[in-house]
């Protein structure tokens, strides 16, 4: 049966219905009848049940058999909700924007990892000695639930939620952690992730999870009723499909992403002709190819959007702002969803297409349209003029406008890149071994020497090139935030300007992947809770438009990412109060002077987040545990600065783990180590007079008038046989996020680019070691993390 449009209207009608409005109720009843007639045996049992319940309730409502019409209607709404929730392919009702698709892709990628961690945690709960496993499992499930909610993956969210409740109940009982049910969830999630990864959107039925949960309830003496029997809908989509079609979908998505970012640019600078042209081209291309492929709906929407943009190009008085911009963005979103539907995995949202085309026409006619229910207030810069007041030129009619200077690119799977990198590293090492082989060295022919020199040069270039392939700029990550900020601003009626700095900063791909989620959390928090409403801001004497800054830069061998808002700042008292209520902090501790820094750290505590949600403690708790864990996973740190009334800044300092660095290779004792060159400020012979022992503080040196601690690398690392003759050793002045310091090494061996290779995560290495680098001779040198070094040296002093 064709669920989509039917259920769309049904849901809307149910929301609008009034308990005292018989015609509306009758219409609703009729719709349910139609659905009931269309149902067949293959539809899940709960769907049948819900439809029947709805009809029964409506009948009694219509016949005025009930005393509490409002209550009855509420029940009707609930059963309709249930009907909707029974549909695995509910995608049309909650289809995804292009943006969300990217988020989804990122989530899918991260989910596999989360699931294996969850699995490990569940298995560990069976080990009585493990106390944290259950907490870990709960946290992962909670995260999955939250993320699924954001991504409108209702089935996942529901299953995770039910599982969470089940765990809570079971843990208070004698049986403890319900590993069976949790594992069923993991298995189901794995297959769901596989479907999503393949580009599909109809998730497999969660029968196994339901069964496991039902069994749990039955054990509990509860009502383990027939919910388990739900046989899901068919339809795992064929992920492969036609090559041309798949290509079109992926290209069209890129065009949409480009259109969207340009539309957002337009919002900031409505008079700039270039974004208009770019958006026009994007829609035009999509239309062309879709026409060729016979995708009519896409052609219609793309054509509509194109007409709008064409008007903006040709008509100087027509400006792309407010309504026009909203409609264009909505068209982009809708196209994204239509693309989802192309592979047949979901039903195209026809009704919405018509609605959107109507809005397009209205905007072109110069009428103001009622915005769709979702997007209420307009956000962004205040453009007072309505449509038709534009003064500046909208640019030349774009037929001959220059092509975008996009670099020609080829998409390559990351696993191939990694393989390439590994193989090139092996090549370098193999070549070094040949050169140093005594047999080869014995041949003194000049021809051989020049060939070897030539090969060395080529391999070096190849190596450098391959290394650079791993690096990506933070630009696209920041750009994703632009849409998030806009949506939140629109929803909450706030005015927020997003400023991004240092978009060109290059990060290792792995680091970028890890900071994506924390950024989303923090940006959402800053917009939702940090930045005040315009009225409130004016009352505080601030500009009505809030400002959110994302900044990235390299600093002293670390990568820094700032998320800074100029909102109300963290509420110290409320955090403290909540911490005490939650038993995370004793009263005495609190009354004793606790520093701001310590207070801010509280918000990262697991369990603090739920409290924040419940008490609405300026919201800063939500998901902070996740933020911290992600950052810690790449050995980064988070620093918070907050001042009441003037805003909050979160600063991630990410060590250059997993990245390529320019390194200084030094010798300490018999070992070789690499220090990030960027962290090295200066290098000098430690003249005896310069290093002095200060009572209680260890060795210190005066460098340019500043008293800095001196660490002997050999000692900090616990190496023997070094520092024999400090007079011959060298003093390096390091700049770290934790302040400047000096280290003493035995010798500098040279400078070279190295790739940081992570060490086995199960080895408990000290914080001062960021990883290993394979040097030219194939041997390993440990890479030191200056920040970790300082922290560790400070710890061992204490």
């Amino acid at each position, binding site marked *: 049966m064709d669920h989509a449009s039917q259920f769309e209207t049904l849901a809307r009608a149910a929301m609008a219905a009034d308990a005292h409005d018989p015609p509306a109720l009758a219409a609703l009843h009729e719709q349910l009848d139609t659905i009931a007639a269309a149902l067949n045996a293959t539809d899940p049992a709960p769907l049948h049940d819900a439809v029947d319940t709805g009809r029964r309730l409506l009948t009694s409502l219509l016949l005025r058999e009930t005393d509490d019409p409002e209550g009855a209607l509420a029940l009707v709404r609930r059963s309709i909700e249930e009907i909707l929730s029974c549909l695995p392919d509910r995608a049309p009702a909650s289809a995804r924007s292009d943006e969300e698709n990217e988020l989804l892709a990122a989530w899918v990628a991260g989910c596999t990892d989360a699931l294996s961690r969850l699995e490990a945690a569940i298995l560990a709960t069976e080990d009585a000695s493990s106390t944290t496993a259950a907490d870990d499992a709960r946290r992962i499930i909670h995260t999955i639930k939250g993320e699924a909610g954001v991504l409108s993956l209702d089935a996942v969210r529901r299953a995770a939620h039910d599982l969470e409740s089940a765990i809570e109940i079971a843990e208070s009982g004698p049986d403890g952690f319900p590993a069976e049910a949790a594992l069923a969830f993991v298995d189901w999630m794995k297959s769901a992730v596989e479907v999503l990864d393949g580009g599909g959107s109809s998730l497999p039925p969660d029968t196994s999870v339901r069964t496991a949960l039902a069994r749990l309830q039955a054990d509990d003496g509860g009502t383990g009723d027939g919910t388990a029997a739900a046989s899901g809908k068919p339809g795992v989509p064929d992920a492969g499909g036609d090559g041309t079609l798949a290509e079109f979908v992926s290209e069209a998505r890129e065009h949409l992403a480009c259109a969207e970012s340009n539309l957002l640019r337009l919002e900031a600078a409505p008079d700039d002709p270039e974004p208009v042209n770019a958006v026009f081209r994007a829609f035009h291309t999509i239309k062309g190819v879709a026409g060729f492929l016979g995708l009519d709906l896409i052609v219609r929407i793309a054509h509509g959007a194109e007409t709008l943009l064409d008007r903006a190009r040709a008509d100087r008085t027509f400006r792309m702002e407010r309504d026009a911009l909203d409609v264009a963005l909505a068209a982009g979103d809708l196209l994204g969803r239509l693309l989802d539907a192309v592979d047949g995995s979901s039903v195209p949202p026809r009704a919405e297409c018509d609605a959107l085309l109507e809005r397009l026409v209205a905007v072109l006619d110069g009428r103001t349209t009622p915005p769709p229910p979702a997007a209420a207030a307009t956000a962004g810069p205040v453009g007072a003029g309505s449509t038709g007041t534009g003064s500046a030129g909208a640019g030349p009619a774009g037929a001959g406008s220059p092509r975008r200077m996009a670099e020609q690119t080829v998409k390559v799977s990351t696993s191939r890149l990694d393989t390439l990198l590994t193989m090139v590293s092996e090549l370098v090492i193999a070549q070094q071994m040949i050169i140093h082989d005594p047999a080869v060295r014995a041949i003194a022919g000049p021809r051989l020497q020049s060939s070897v020199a030539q090969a060395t040069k080529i391999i070096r270039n190849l190596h450098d090139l391959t290394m650079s392939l791993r690096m990506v700029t933070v630009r696209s990550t920041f750009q994703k935030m632009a849409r998030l900020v806009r949506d939140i601003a629109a929803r909450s009626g706030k005015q927020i300007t997003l400023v991004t700095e240092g978009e060109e900063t290059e990060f290792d791909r792995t680091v970028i992947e890890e900071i994506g989620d924390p950024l989303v959390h923090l940006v959402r928090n800053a917009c939702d809770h940090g930045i005040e409403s315009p009225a409130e801001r004016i009352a505080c004497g601030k500009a009505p438009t809030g400002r959110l800054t994302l900044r990235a830069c390299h600093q002293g061998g670390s990568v820094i990412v700032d998320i800074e808002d100029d909102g109300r700042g963290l509420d110290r008292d409320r955090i403290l109060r909540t911490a005490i209520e939650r038993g995370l902090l004793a009263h005495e501790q609190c009354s004793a002077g606790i520093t701001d820094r310590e207070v801010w750290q509280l918000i990262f505590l697991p369990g603090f987040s739920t409290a924040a949600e419940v008490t609405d403690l300026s919201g800063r708790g939500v998901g902070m545990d996740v933020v911290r864990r992600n950052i810690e996973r790449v050995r980064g740190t988070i620093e918070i600065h907050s001042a009441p009334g003037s805003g909050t800044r979160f600063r991630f300092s990410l060590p250059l783990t997993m990245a390529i660095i320019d390194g200084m290779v030094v010798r300490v004792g018999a070992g070789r180590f690499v220090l990030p060159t960027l962290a090295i400020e200066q290098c000098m012979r430690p003249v005896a007079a310069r290093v002095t022992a200060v009572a209680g503080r260890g060795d210190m040196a005066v460098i340019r008038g500043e008293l800095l601690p001196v660490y002997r690398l*050999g000692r900090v690392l616990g190496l023997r046989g070094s520092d024999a003759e400090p007079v011959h050793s060298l003093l390096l002045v390091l700049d770290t996020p934790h302040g400047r310091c000096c280290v003493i090494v035995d010798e500098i061996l040279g400078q070279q680019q190295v790739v940081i290779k992570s060490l086995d995560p199960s080895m408990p290495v000290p914080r001062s070691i960021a990883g290993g680098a394979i040097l030219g001779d194939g041997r390993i040198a440990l890479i030191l993390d200056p920040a970790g070094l300082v922290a560790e040296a400070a710890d*061992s002093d204490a």
Partner: protein
Amino acid sequence: MHSGPASRSHRVERAYPGRYLSFHLGCGAYGLDILRVREIIAMIDITPLPGTPDFVRGIINLRGRIIPVVELRRRLGIAAAADDDQACIIVVEREGREGSDPRLTGVIVDRVSEIVDIDADSIGPAPRPARGTGAGFISGVGRVQDTVIPLLAIDRILHAGEVAPSGGGAGDAVTEAA
């Protein structure tokens, strides 16, 4: 005898019939599940890793991949001896996350000898260890011709996290020197 499906419990490793790589350590022979052996390499330069338990000899470069190397003698509480030219590193695949590449760890042994088939009739449960050292490191014993060799519970052995560095490790050197 345990002839059920080979479901690996996370707490106790139990030996199953199959092929084993036998190797020598001190004066005894041991067996290692051949399915866990990635390769055997000659001794190479090992970079020491500060702050790790003393049985971790360091890290090596295995064709561009950095993997830790464990000194099995120390781990099993056998008196240390200098490596001779028969000593080699067995690269073992460890239980990792499903789907991802298995984690690799090198294990230093005195010499490898042969691959043996141990069928269900020649395999027996691990004897209870007399002392604390090496508790749970043996997953069973296998009869090979006239001798009985202990079969190693390699995941347990390589699980470095749960073992605090015992005395004399690099960790102590810090305080010693300071």
